[in-house]
């Protein structure tokens, strides 16, 4: 029986489409109160006073908490939200306090929490809090941050929090017959989940137990951070993961509310619920992207790349929290993508501004780096008179060069290499799939008032981050198997593929396996779901444990049935030992990342009168090492592409020159819909298994998104080649593109 590789329908879907999913807002507890958060309307200022008496006196209001209450509880200082990855002491001063004290540094920063009988009363009372803030000039963009005339953190001498160097070889002194230097930028945007964040915290004082529902992504890490900040032993805190409406890297990190809501529940000894509204979601969930660069490529006349060097500037917002350094580290390290670049020197400055904190969103730093690189490559190929496909083919890392060492990032340097791959095969397949040679004659042609263009690009995506994952299996009295795994579900189909993997190893039908995952109540330890890791890390942990369980069950069955262990089919053995309480647990450890890869190609038509771009066709070819489920794998790729098209054309978290937030609703922040981009295809391959895990799988959740900006912008430039239009900045909105067309005409 084969289960891996089969297009099995998602086991999650029946529950969800029948309305039987359980999301945090579906939960109700007796005596439950509701919280609302007062957020700063000022981008940068000093808090002079917060008057809460009037709000406290309003009907239905149970409490108003400010930084003073939190500081008193915490024994003096307001706790901060630490970096979850790449912690370093010199970044600690930039961590976000769980509630603003002395200063506010972005519009949306929490100042007070109101707890009331219901959410409407809590919101009514927000207006009754009087906050006096001495307004300071806002640092509203990269240029203002670099000047450092106004400092976000006065104890620092600069708004540049840190500079990361991605380096390989000697790019600084590399000389070349051809050089081109360009500036590009990607706008601030992020994951906008269908379901906003939410939490329900209950405090059981008699048993010293804090239970927080609404956990996601990394429940065990969140528990550790929360327990420390609550001054509780870890096992007094339970994090419960439920169904969620999207994760994409943003949901499940530690946010201010992850402290404030449990804090309120504990202080009041009542269950407290908080559901983020859409304005808060856009204001204060992690923002991402927002990177500009000034980079140079050095080539031989034949197009062989000698070096890539230059400067990258990340507008990191007001604080570091959670995965805040993931984006600036990635953008430099992966800017060269799947190409052979012997010399790399990229300095990434991380600039603090009065905006919401920046952190990871699907394809962090990679979407941006791929846009910069693929644009630069098309310009270079054009200058050198080399076909842009030939330029890429010449420079792609070859199969024989694997494992291929890439640039390392300092500080906190770690060697990094691509594990396996035949990148040219994916490129050729993408060209075949879109019919490149047939469509070639269309390039730059005006047909019925629209210019047609083609674009192509190649990508790698990192997977399998985090060092370990845990799994456990229990044989139930009814001869079924219960599987527990540390992976969390953020809608990616983790239940389905986990059961497929378990079924494959145990050779029993999927119906005989139940899965529990995510919550800290199921296991002693777990890592979770980020960095495209659940299939590789969770899946491999399941393989390890299933093999163990198989041995345990076979042995017990052999003695019970008095037959040789290897003669007994596993299903029969399981029935024989049901009721004996057999179980197995285990860990999969891996310090090497996987690198899925591929190519994408697009065909667009541009209306020069309006600047509107129609994506006529977009095809991605994506090699994920081993396909567990072709449906969910392709689903990940296609979903990623749609999100990437949103980031390429529509999505933009905007601020004015005073740091005031301009896009607080979905009327201002535009998302892609099904009708916008109907012709998207993903071809999944499994030509190059990863050598670093028993499945050969590679994380595949982010490859779809990373190439979209570069590929589409190249197609637009190709369409408008007769007008000399070169998009250098995202998003490619109709007015912007129209201005480029009109400007270049003059």
């Amino acid at each position, binding site marked *: 029986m084969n289960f891996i590789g089969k297009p099995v329908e998602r086991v999650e879907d029946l529950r969800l489409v029948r309305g039987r999913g359980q999301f945090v807002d579906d939960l109700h507890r007796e005596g439950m109160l509701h919280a609302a958060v007062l957020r700063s309307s000022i981008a940068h200022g000093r808090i002079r006073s917060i008057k809460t008496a009037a709000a406290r006196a309003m009907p239905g209001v149970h409490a108003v908490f400010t930084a003073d209450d939190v500081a008193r509880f915490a024994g003096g200082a307001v706790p901060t939200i630490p970096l979850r990855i790449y912690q370093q002491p010199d970044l600690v001063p930039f961590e976000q306090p769980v509630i603003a004290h002395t200063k506010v540094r972005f519009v949306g920063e929490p100042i007070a929490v109101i707890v009331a009988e219901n959410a*409407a009363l809590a919101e009514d009372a927000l207006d009754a809090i009087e906050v006096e803030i001495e307004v300071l000039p806002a640092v509203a963009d990269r240029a203002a941050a670099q000047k450092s005339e106004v400092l976000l953190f006065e104890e620092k001498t600069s708004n540049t929090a840190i500079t990361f160097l991605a380096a390989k070889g000697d790019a600084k002194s590399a000389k070349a017959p051809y050089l081109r230097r360009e500036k590009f930028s990607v706008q601030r945007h992020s994951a906008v989940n269908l379901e906003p964040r939410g939490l329900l915290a209950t405090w059981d004082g008699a048993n010293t137990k804090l239970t927080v529902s609404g956990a996601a992504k990394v429940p065990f890490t969140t528990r550790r951070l929360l327990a420390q900040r609550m001054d509780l032993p870890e096992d007094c805190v339970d994090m419960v993961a439920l169904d969620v409406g999207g994760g994409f890297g943003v949901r499940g990190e530690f946010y201010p509310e992850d402290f404030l809501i449990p804090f309120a529940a504990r202080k009041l000894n009542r269950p407290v619920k908080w559901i983020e509204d*859409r*304005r808060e979601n856009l204001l204060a969930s992690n923002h991402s992207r927002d990177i500009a660069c000034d980079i140079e490529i050095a080539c031989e006349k034949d197009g062989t790349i000698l070096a890539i060097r230059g400067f990258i500037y990340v507008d990191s917002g007001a604080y570091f929290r959670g995965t805040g350094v993931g984006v600036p580290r990635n953008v430099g390290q992966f800017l060269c993508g799947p190409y052979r670049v012997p010399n790399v020197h990229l300095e990434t400055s991380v600039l603090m501004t009065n905006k919401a904190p920046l952190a990871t969103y699907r394809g962090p730093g990679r979407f941006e780096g791929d846009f910069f690189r693929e644009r630069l490559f098309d310009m270079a190929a054009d200058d050198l008179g080399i076909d842009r496909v030939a330029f890429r083919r010449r420079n792609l890392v070859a199969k024989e060069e694997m494992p291929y060492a890439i640039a390392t990032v300092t500080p906190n340097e770690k060697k990094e290499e691509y594990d396996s791959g035949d990148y040219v095969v994916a490129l050729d397949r993408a060209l075949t799939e879109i019919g490149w040679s047939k469509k070639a004659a269309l390039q730059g042609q005006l047909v019925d008032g629209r210019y047609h263009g083609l674009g192509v690009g190649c990508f790698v995506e990192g997977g399998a981050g985090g060092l370990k994952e845990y799994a456990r299996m229990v044989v139930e009295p009814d001869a079924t198997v219960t599987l527990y795994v540390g992976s969390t579900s953020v809608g990616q189909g983790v239940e389905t593929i986990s059961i497929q993997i378990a079924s494959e190893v145990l050779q029993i039908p999927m119906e005989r396996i139940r899965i529990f995952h995510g919550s800290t109540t199921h296991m002693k330890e777990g890592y979770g779901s980020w960095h495209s890791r659940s299939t590789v890390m969770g899946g491999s942990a399941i393989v390890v444990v299933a093999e163990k369980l198989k041995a345990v069950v076979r042995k017990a069955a052999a003695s019970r049935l008095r037959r040789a262990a290897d003669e007994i089919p596993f299903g029969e053995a399981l029935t024989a030992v049901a009721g004996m309480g057999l179980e197995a647990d285990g860990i999969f450890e891996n310090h090497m990342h996987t690198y899925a890869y591929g190519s994408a190609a697009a065909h667009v038509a541009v209306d020069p009168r309006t600047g509107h771009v129609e994506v006529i066709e977009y095809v991605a070819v994506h090699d994920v090492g081993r396909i567990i489920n072709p449906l969910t794998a392709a689903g990940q790729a296609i979903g990623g592409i749609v999100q990437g098209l949103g980031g390429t054309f529509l999505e933009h978290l905007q601020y004015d020159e005073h740091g005031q937030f301009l896009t607080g609703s979905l009327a201002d922040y535009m998302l892609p819909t099904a009708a916008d981009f109907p012709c998207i295809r993903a071809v999944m391959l499994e030509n190059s298994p990863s050598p670093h895990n028993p499945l050969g799988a590679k994380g595949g959740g982010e490859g779809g998104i990373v190439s979209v900006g570069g590929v589409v912008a190249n197609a637009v430039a190709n369409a408008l080649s007769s007008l000399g239009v070169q998009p250098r900045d995202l998003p490619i909105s109709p007015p912007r593109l129209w201005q480029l067309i009109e400007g270049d005409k003059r």
Partner: protein
Amino acid sequence: MKLPAFEYASPVTLAEAISLLAATGGKAKLLAGGQSLMPAMAFRLAAPELLVDLRRVPNLDRIEAVYEARAAYAKK
């Protein structure tokens, strides 16, 4: 993004609806479909004291094209 507190009236005649509007001196809003007003209230951009629901008011539930008017328009 919950609604602020407001009074609600559901008149059954046009005259009643008009008198409710007049009596509150501009602090009332008419509620028809609510597609614009409800989000505005949820964002706390609008906080009318009274919502006058037109749901039960007769003769406001259709648009009629009157022949003479159409003929007059066609001549223009």
